[in-house]
């Protein structure tokens, strides 16, 4: 693990030294979207429960992280000044993100516990409503800046702490934890729930509890992504967490292949880059983007990877097959 973090640190240093600010920002956005997509895939792909309010949990995370970071700095500024700057910043951000994950997870329990009791599309309806309610709440929360957003009362906005190292370290942690969960007895039980809830119960799986666990883990990931997003952007505004963002994440996991973690990673990167590239097309973006999605649905309805995972052994057999 230390090794992995060192590699991320090294690559981050290299990337930040070579690429422009604009490209660097897109790379960070890719990382944040990877966290969102891998998190959402756990509930929408692996467990088969359709959540369409991921941006709401992201908003909860973004606001709680920003408030925590500002609060810590205002209270313990003098003590933190003793530490070297990157260490102090990293420490504050880490605490903020843990708080973000906790609050988002708690929101996940509130939304998930009642709606996941039922089978069917209730989760979609409730999460849709939740996403909008959260956004409107923040829109009207004057102490958190209302519609103009929260910047901790600082003229330059929130401190920019989300660099390559932190974004991709968290992305790695989220991917490792969710992969491990998916490949465990819990993951099997979640897949069984997706395949057939009645037969899952018939073999002793407490479906409601497991659906809530998956939903909460997914919400916590969204909270972390939200926290990182706020400290990349320098502000959190209610409009950053509109319904479109939830849809973008859903598109990422569907394009990548519902149920595949490596697919979600690929989908997140592909869609993030695509949206940036299409910026050139200006008003035609809203025509080209859906056309590309329709093409994907027609040509590869199961997504880029389907339910497969990218792995070395799979690549090896694929290459060998190609050589024949």
């Amino acid at each position, binding site marked *: 693990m230390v090794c992995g973090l060192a590699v991320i640190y090294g690559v981050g240093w290299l990337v930040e030294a070579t690429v422009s600010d604009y490209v660097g920002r897109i790379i960070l956005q890719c990382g944040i979207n990877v966290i969102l997509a891998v998190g959402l895939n756990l509930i929408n792909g692996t467990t088969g429960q359709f959540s369409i309010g991921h941006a709401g949990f992201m908003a909860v995370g973004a606001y709680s992280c920003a408030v925590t970071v500002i609060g810590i700095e205002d209270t313990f500024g003098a003590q933190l000044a003793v530490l070297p700057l990157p260490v102090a910043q990293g420490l504050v951000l880490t605490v903020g993100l843990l708080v973000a994950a906790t609050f988002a997870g708690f929101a996940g329990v509130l939304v998930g516990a009642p709606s996941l009791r039922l089978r069917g599309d209730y989760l979609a309806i409730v999460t849709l409503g939740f996403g909008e309610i959260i956004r409107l709440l923040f829109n009207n929360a004057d102490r958190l800046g209302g519609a103009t957003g929260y910047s901790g009362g600082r003229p330059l906005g929130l401190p920019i702490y989300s660099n390559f190292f932190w974004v991709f370290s968290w992305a790695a942690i989220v991917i490792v*934890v969710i992969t*491990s*969960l998916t490949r*465990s*007895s*819990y993951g*099997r*039980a979640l*897949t*069984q729930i997706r*395949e*057939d809830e*009645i*037969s*899952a*119960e*018939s*073999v*002793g*799986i*407490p*479906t409601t509890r497991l659906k809530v*666990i998956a939903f909460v883990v997914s919400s916590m990931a969204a909270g972390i992504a939200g926290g990182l997003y706020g400290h990349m952007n320098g502000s959190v505004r209610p409009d950053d967490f509109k319904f479109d963002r939830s849809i973008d994440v859903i598109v990422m996991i569907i394009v990548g292949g519902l149920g595949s973690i490596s697919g979600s990673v690929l989908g997140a990167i592909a869609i993030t880059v695509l949206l940036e590239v299409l910026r050139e097309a200006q008003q035609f973006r809203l025509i080209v983007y859906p056309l590309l999605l329709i093409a994907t649905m027609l040509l590869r309805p199961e997504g880029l990877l389907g*339910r497969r995972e990218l792995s070395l052994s799979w690549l090896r057999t694929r290459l060998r097959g190609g050589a024949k």
Partner: protein
Amino acid sequence: MSAALLELKGIEKVFGGLRAIGGVSFSVAEKQIFGLIGPNGAGKTTLFNVVTGVYTPEGGSIRFAGEEIAGWKPFRIARAGIGRTFQNIRIAGDMSVLENVLVASFQRRQAGLFGAIFRSARYESEERAMVKRAEELLELFGLLPQKNEDAGSLPYGAQRRLEIARALMLEPKLILLDEPAAGLNSSEADKLKEQIRWLRDKLGLTIVLVEHNMQVVMNVCDHVHCVDHGETIADGTPEHVRNDPEVLRAYLGADVSTEEMNEVVAVVSAHDAARGGKS
């Protein structure tokens, strides 16, 4: 007769205005092979769903191993020791054969969520033990060579066996088989009879089966209970039930002689086997 393992008393189940089950009572003794029969739409599968908690009965009591289980959640009833299979096979086609069986070990694990995510020593040793047990069960049902294949790619008969293996992974005391012979040809049905007896004799299980294949029912069951329109019309030994005039009337709609009945039974079961026994 040993103590009753499962006892239903005055079960009522209503769907809207339809009274699907109207006061059915029966008791299943330990290590009995109990047949539940009746014409299509008589309420047999509904009774299974009531016993396993998929439906909550409007009235009556269900006692299993001395506990009142009516109104319990299905997963709790499964954990109490009632395994089941389904009329239309419900296995996870996208999961491997081995995983389908392993899924049923979830409730017996002690290592919690964090143990599973961080692969604690306890989780790993439990996982090894469960995989071993699952492979033993697959071996028993002749599915071990296909353990890594997608369950959905197995032939129909093998999927039925896989479903039974999965139910056994629960280590149940009682197993409910919903039309296990449906879609099997006559040699497969003969094999099934052996397997059902084997479940009772070697594993000490109590078995309740819903079945349209009368040859299987009359051959393998110790006790038969016949329902029609959600009500009991006969209960007793296979010989007693097959000769009961009410049963004949329910199946055939008229008075017929025993010889004619036997003839009809033979034709019907052959027909059942031939067309896949769908009800």
